Every structure is written in C-alpha cells, then in structure tokens.
C-alpha cells in the first residue's frame, strides 16, 4: 500500500515538489496511517525530516492531542467526508503548537481507499494576532482603541490584582459600571460576590440599613435581622455608584468601615469583620463638593487611592466608529436584521455629534436606527430626528470637556460664564448662605428673610451640609 500511494505521487507531474511548495503542513498517510510523504512546511513545523518520518505511524510524528484521544481516521471509509478540528502538537523542539488539522480519505480512480491526506495549519500567528487585537481594543466588555482607553486597559489588570479602593469618575454613560465589573472579574475576588449599591437611589435612613444591615427590633418594622450589602459582599467587591449622593452622615460610617473594615449593623453592638473591596463611582466633581462642604475630604482621600478617569466619548476619536460597528453587529444579531453598514452621510452625522450621554447614548441611537432601518444601510433618515434637525453642535452645548478630561472635574453640571453652577440646588444653597450672612448667622432671622419656616431652613441646611458653627 505504501508503494501504491508513493506511485501516485510519482505521476506525470512531480506532485511531491508541488506539495512541498504549499505553505501549509501536508502529510500523506497510507491505509495503516504510516507516513508516506511529509512536505517541507510540515517538516519545519514538526522538526522531523521526510527521511526520518517515512513508514512511522503518524501519531508518533505528528504527536497531536486528537491522535490519542479520538483519531479521526478510525472509522473513516471511502464514502466518508473530510474532517477538521483544532488541536495541538508537540514538535521536536519541545514546543506545544496549536494547530488546525483537516483530514480527508485518499481514493484511487476506482474509489478504493488508498490512505489519507492531512493538512496541518499552524495557529500561532492567528492566536498571537487575536491576543494583540483583544488586548488593545477590548477589556471585559469595554471597547476602545483610543490612547486614553488603551491606557485604561493597561492599568485595569494591575489595579484588579490588589485590594486598594478605587474611585471611578467620568460623565454619565461612559461605562463606570462596566469598569467596576471588569475590575472585579479580573481580580482574585472574581469568585466572590459583586454587590452594587446606588447611593442616590434610596433615602438616607433606608440606605443606612441597606448598606450596613440592621438588628431585629432596631427600629419599628425591623422584624428580622438584615445582613446589609457590606456583609453580602464579604470576600467580594462592593460597588458604590453615585457616591457623590451619599448623605454626610453615612459618609462618616463608610469612612469608619474603610478604616477598620468592621461593619456595625443598626442597633447592634457587635461588629462584623467584612473582607470587602470598595469601588466607588460618581459623575460629580468630588473635589468641588468637598470645597462646598457636601462631601467629606477624608472620605475622598480614602476612596481616591486609585483613580480611574473615563474619558467622554467625544474625546475618544476613532472609538465612535469602532463602537458604532460593534453595536450594529450586536443589534443585528439580536433583532435578526441584516444591516451591513452606515451610509457615508449617516456616519458623518454620527461622528460629528458630541454625545453628551456618551456610549449609552450612542448605543441607543444605533438601537433606534436598527429598529427603524428596513434597508441594508443606515441612512440619515433612520437616525433620531434630534441628530439631523438640530443645528451644528457648538462648544456651548457640550459639557466642559477640558475639565472633564483633565480629571480635575467630573461634575458636568453646566457652568455660567463666571464659573458658577446654574442648577437650582446651587442657587438655593447660595441664597441660604446669603441670607445667613445678612442675618449674622442667626437661623430664625435667615428663615424670616427667606420667608421659610425655621424647620424648612434647618432641613435645607442639613441637605446642603451648611453649618453656622
């Protein structure tokens, strides 16, 4: 049989030299799966010369994992289809090489089985390329190839490996939650729980019991013991989102926890030693809040061990295109659509839009377009009307980018020309301060000046962290 296969190779065309030139490993086996011919590429890959390999069982030369587990040639007959799979081999240089093998039966003109033809592709270059691409553009669910994002991708695995507190800042929709999840999953705590608490979503009293838990009978309605999120996150990560909205009283309690890692549930005298890593996030400017007395400076210093500033989408350059394509692919498969791309004009509009809502807004725009579009390409009319109807975006309509990207400010409330906040809260706070100054610090007089009851003034002062002492 060895001779018959060899004869076929010695036909009119010098088949051996042709196969030798193919830049992929090829081996011809006889019916007993002994090597008849090994091309030059495969000789280089395995480290065995043609002379050494001839007549040797193929599994001894190729040393594929699949050869030993379930050899595809076993049970292969003349009518069998070719088979392919991914496996690995160990070459003569003692290197384990990932390979893709493709095996087909060799038949003569009468259809009699003569042997097998196997091609072996070295997957190392592909794997290396994949690793490079994925390393540069993706970390967990985060996508980006802008220098700012690449920098974040590089530091995230390092940050994940230690237990320091992390403060994530960035505008709304930039992916703070995703970064927190990515840090947890890349850390040694990934097997433990990841507990998320939105500090702005609950009133102060509820939040305290939610975070630290309570003892049965601690207050009316506390009919049973509640463990609290800190305890639930034991051996895992506690993610405090909107930390800027955490009331001052709880800031002190959080500070105490960060100092000694002990949680005291409401109404309990016995503490619980919680092994928890705290990750906090906010879209507010904590430094500014500290200056205004709305956030404790010592808590900021404790949380600010590792700071990650996520850049707004408008500062991420080509990432907009990358994200558009990614969301288009994802939504295509989710909605069963076959939209191939964005038209040139639609792309121009999408690229020039400043995305105040960042990645979340971009995702929603693509989702809207995919739902509306009935064609193969997204056209301008498929985009939300506010993108196409509004005039060109001016810097005034965009949040202060310089402050946002510098990391000095992550509070994106609009500013007036003098740099003062224009929100009602800021104005109200200023009014209270003015009234207190006029009243010489006397609260009853200040309340009269503002035509408020004393209790209203007291409540508002507490809310804004104003003290007359």
């Amino acid at each position, binding site marked *: 049989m060895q001779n018959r296969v060899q004869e076929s190779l010695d036909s009119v065309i010098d088949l051996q030299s042709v196969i030798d030139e193919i830049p992929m490993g090829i081996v011809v086996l006889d019916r007993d799966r002994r090597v008849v011919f090994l091309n030059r590429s495969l000789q280089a890959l395995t480290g065995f010369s043609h002379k*050494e390999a001839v*007549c*040797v*069982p193929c*599994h*001894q*030369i190729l*040393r594929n*994992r699949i*050869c*030993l*587990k379930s050899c595809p040639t076993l049970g292969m007959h003349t009518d069998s289809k070719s088979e392919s799979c991914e496996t690995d*081999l*160990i*070459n*003569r*240089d*003692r*290197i*384990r090489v990932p390979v893709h093998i493709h095996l087909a039966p060799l038949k003569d003109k009468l259809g009699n089985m003569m042997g097998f033809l196997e091609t072996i592709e070295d997957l190392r270059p592909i794997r290396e390329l994949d690793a490079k691409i994925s390393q540069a553009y993706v970390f967990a669910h985060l996508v980006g190839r802008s220098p700012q994002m690449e920098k974040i991708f590089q530091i995230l695995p390092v940050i994940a490996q230690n237990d320091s507190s992390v403060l994530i800042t960035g505008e709304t929709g930039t992916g703070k939650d995703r970064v927190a999840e990515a840090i947890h999953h890349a850390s040694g705590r990934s097997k433990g729980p990841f507990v998320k608490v939105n500090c702005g979503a609950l009133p102060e009293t509820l939040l305290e019991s939610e975070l630290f838990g309570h003892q049965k009978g601690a207050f009316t309605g506390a009919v049973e013991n509640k463990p609290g999120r800190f305890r639930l996150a034991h051996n895992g990560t506690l993610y405090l989102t909107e930390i800027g909205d955490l009331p001052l009283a709880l800031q002190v309690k959080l500070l105490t926890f960060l100092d000694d890692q002990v949680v005291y549930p409401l109404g309990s005298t016995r503490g619980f030693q919680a092994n928890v890593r705290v990750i906090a996030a906010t879209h507010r400017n904590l430094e500014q809040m500290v200056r205004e007395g709305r956030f404790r400076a010592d808590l900021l210093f404790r949380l600010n061990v590792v700071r990650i500033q996520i850049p707004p989408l408008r500062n991420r350059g080509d990432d907009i295109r990358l994200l558009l394509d990614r969301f288009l692919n994802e939504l295509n498969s989710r909605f069963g659509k076959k939209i191939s791309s964005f038209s040139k004009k639609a792309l121009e509009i999408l690229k020039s839009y400043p995305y105040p809502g960042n990645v979340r807004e971009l995702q929603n725009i693509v989702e809207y377009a995919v739902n509306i579009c009935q064609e193969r390409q997204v056209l301008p009319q498929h985009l939300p009307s506010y993108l196409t109807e509004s005039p060109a975006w001016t810097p005034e309509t965009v949040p202060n980018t310089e402050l946002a990207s510098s990391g000095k400010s992550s509070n994106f409330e609009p500013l007036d020309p003098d740099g003062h906040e224009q929100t009602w809260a800021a104005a109200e706070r200023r009014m209270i301060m003015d009234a207190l100054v006029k009243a010489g610090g006397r609260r009853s007089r200040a309340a009269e000046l503002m035509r408020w009851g004393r209790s209203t003034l007291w409540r508002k002062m507490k809310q804004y962290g104003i003290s007359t002492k």
Partner: protein
Amino acid sequence: MAQKVLIPINGNDVAPRFDLATEVLIAVGGGVRAKIKEKIVVLSESSSEKLCQLILAEGIDTVICNGIEEEHYQYLTWKRVQVFDSVMGSWKSVLKRFYEGTLKPGEILYKDAD
C-alpha cells in the same frame, strides 16, 4: 550500577506524548543485575505534573519518551533525571537498546523492526 528507567507507554509502543500518557513502564536493570525487572503502572489521569511527581517519588534515573514540553524536560533535567526524548518504537526494543547502551535521544526504531 543498576538503572531505573521510566517509559510512558501506549500499548506496545512508547507513548507519543509525555503529557497524555496514562500508562508507564518502570524498569530496573543493568549493572550487576542480569535480569531486567519491569512493572507497568496505570495512571488515574494523564498529567505531566503528576508524572513528574511519580518520577521523583520512584527515584527514576532515566526517562525515555517521545514528545515532551520544554518546561517538563528542563524540570526533570534540573532534578538530575536523564531524559531521552523523541524516541519512537516498541517499548521492549527501546528498553533493550537502552540497557545495551546504544539508545540515543531522537532514535526511531520502527524502521529496525520493519
């Protein structure tokens, strides 16, 4: 001096890969011993690390195998175990050649048998 040899085997042959072997032959012979003592050990699972542990626990002098990864080759060599790798053929002929003192790493004995 008597030499203790371990060969990962697959049926009658030397196993193609050290890391995938589930059976090993342990032989003691040479020196003043006229007869070679052989025993076959069936492993619970294929694992390079466990095989390395067994080699050290059994006090093996020489390992004869076919494909082995550099990491394990270097580890065994560092532990003063002699390794003959890329050896192909039936384990009986390999063992015979070894105790005759004519076996070399990379030896392919199938052609001798043919």
